[in-house]
């Protein structure tokens, strides 16, 4: 009953992405890149003796264009689509709570919700209503257009369940704040918690016009989420530099920046932490970052979607998870202008408290109003503060 699987394939970006299409195509497998970079980074910053093992590769190359941006160039009958949907749903149902029990992964309920979102992305704009009408009329032979071949949908959902490939990599995007950000292997999927950083910046610039008009920097930008969120709330003021060590992230962030027409406002630069900020020392109005902060020993126990598929470069913060956060704290004072604001995401209460203590006792006089902020689940998540005037 289940059609045979064939590997997913790639096709050109539509004209919206013409400038960036070449980027995505010329890249070798992004995970190979990430591995090399991890080695470089560990030499530079952590002096870690052995590089981490490479993340497990997906069995077929990931489709490079996010589903929702693809042209609806495939057609199928409602009954074929429903047959896939019903197969996918029973596969999701068969999981029960086994992923949740083994590594706190998604349960069937969440997987079924993801299946609905996949349907949203794969149906062309007007076709959901066509679909509803066909369903209401009980007319399974209605032809509808899709953004992926039905065969590819089988393959994608199999990857989701069998390989635990993250849903966001399957559809190629993450809904974050009011944005839809393209993501792919090699780039950290922005988390809901991180949305708060943009709110914190919004609060600060509403009280200080000087900061609103200044230069902001998002270090380790990944998909460009925080930089784009900040650029949008800055409105007609200020500008943003977004940096990342990983060229895949630089390209994905650039693509997202361009998709939101923010290329005049956000400059994406490649390089490690302070390196791409040479020339603006002491001039930065605000510094934000969601750096890698998971202790190295915890990486192997991560939820499969995260540990097997997301870039270790963006997760592993060294032995205590603090290597990059301390690097950021140490450099922030010389990078920020007097009165400048910083906000960093951390692993939780322990790191937050350590950093507050560190800044007060090891970097006395550098910062003021150093504070911790919780995420919406009530976990202390962010450290914020200002450079002394």
């Amino acid at each position: 009953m289940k059609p045979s699987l064939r590997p997913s394939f790639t096709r050109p970006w539509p004209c919206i992405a013409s400038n960036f299409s070449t980027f995505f195509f010329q890249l070798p497998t992004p995970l190979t890149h990430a591995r090399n970079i991890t080695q470089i980074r560990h030499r530079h910053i952590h002096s870690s003796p052995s590089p981490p093992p490479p993340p497990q590769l997906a069995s077929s190359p990931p489709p490079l264009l996010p589903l929702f941006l693809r042209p609806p160039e495939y057609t199928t009958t409602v009954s074929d689509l429903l047959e896939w949907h019903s197969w996918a749903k029973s596969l999701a149902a068969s999981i029960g709570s086994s992923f949740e029990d083994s590594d706190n992964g998604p349960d069937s309920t969440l997987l079924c919700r993801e299946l609905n979102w996949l349907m949203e992305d794969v149906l062309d704009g007007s076709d959901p209503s066509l679909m509803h009408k066909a369903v209401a009329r009980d007319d399974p032979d209605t032809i509808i257009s899709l953004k992926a071949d039905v065969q590819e949908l089988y393959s994608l959902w199999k990857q989701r369940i069998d390989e635990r490939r993250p849903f966001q990599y399957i559809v190629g995007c993450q809904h974050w704040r009011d944005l839809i950000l393209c993501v792919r292997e090699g780039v950290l999927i922005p988390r809901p918690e991180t949305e708060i950083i943009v709110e914190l910046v919004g609060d600060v610039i509403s009280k200080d016009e000087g900061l609103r008009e200044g230069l902001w920097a998002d270090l380790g930008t990944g998909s460009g989420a925080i930089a784009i969120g900040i650029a949008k709330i800055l409105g007609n003021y200020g500008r943003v530099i977004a940096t990342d060590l990983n060229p895949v992230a630089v390209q994905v962030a650039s693509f997202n920046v361009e998709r939101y027409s923010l290329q005049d406002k956000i400059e994406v630069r490649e390089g490690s932490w302070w390196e791409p900020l040479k020339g603006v020392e002491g001039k930065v109005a605000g510094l934000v970052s969601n750096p890698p902060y998971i202790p190295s020993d915890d990486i192997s126990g991560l939820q499969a979607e995260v540990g097997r598929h997301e870039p270790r470069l963006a997760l592993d913060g060294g032995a205590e998870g603090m290597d990059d956060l301390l690097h950021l704290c140490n450099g922030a004072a010389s990078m920020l202008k007097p009165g400048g604001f910083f906000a960093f995401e951390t692993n939780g209460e322990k790191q937050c408290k350590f950093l507050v203590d560190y800044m007060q006792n090891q970097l006395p006089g550098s910062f003021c109003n150093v504070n911790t902020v919780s995420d919406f689940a009530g976990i202390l998540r962010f450290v914020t503060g200002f450079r002394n005037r």
Partner: protein
Amino acid sequence: MKVSMAIQSLRKSLLHRTAYLGNSPSISSFLKFSEFAVSARPRLTVTSNATLKWRTGERKCRWGDFCSSNSAHNKALGSCFYSNGVSASSNHNGSSYLELTDEELMKQCEMGTFKASGPGGQHRNKRESAVRIKHIPTGIIAQAVEDRSQHKNRASALLRLRTLLALKVRNAVNLEAYSPPKELLQILPLKSTVRGSDCGPQIGPHNPKFMLGVQALLDLLSALEGSVSDAAKLLGLSTGALSRLILSDDSLRLAANELRASKGMKPLK
């Protein structure tokens, strides 16, 4: 291939994007018909287009410890963007809640997501973008789970909160010198004899202003002990015309019938 079964299952998942409304806690002084708030089964749900439906509890939601129990959290959030403006309750009545901007209304609310299981942040990819907001002055809770983004779920939850405030919070009405407020006149059919020509075309359920009229209508019904015919007289309509208006919107019909049931009257059909 059982297409019809698959169609059924898809219809369920695509057509019913619903979210539960939580139980309403103890502050019931605003709630004339608090049984509306106290959850019975089947539970009351609000769909995305803000109509109320009864629905058996087929989807399980895990709402854990709400973040209000964490004082550090509240303090931190209070200092930045979502403060808990309890003080508003003393000088606000229901209609003025609806006049608040989203930002002002949010300041009277606590917001939480799922209970944290594990360290969260980079550790986790479970798309737990569900949002639950609690309106402190009234204790009304609205939730949204169906969207992928926390941002959109928050907006949906806030919209649902506005609907619930209109439906649940009753304001006193002076029947001695009653004159229908403009919001109410605007939702009445044009044949109403008290409706002036300056009210413009009739506002329907898809207009966000409709809920303001619904609130005023429910206030009047409540003051008249649920009597549709008495309300119709004050609104320059026949009893049948007002009944049709009430029955035209699911949320209004359910709220009106709850109100009538609490006064020992038969439901409108």
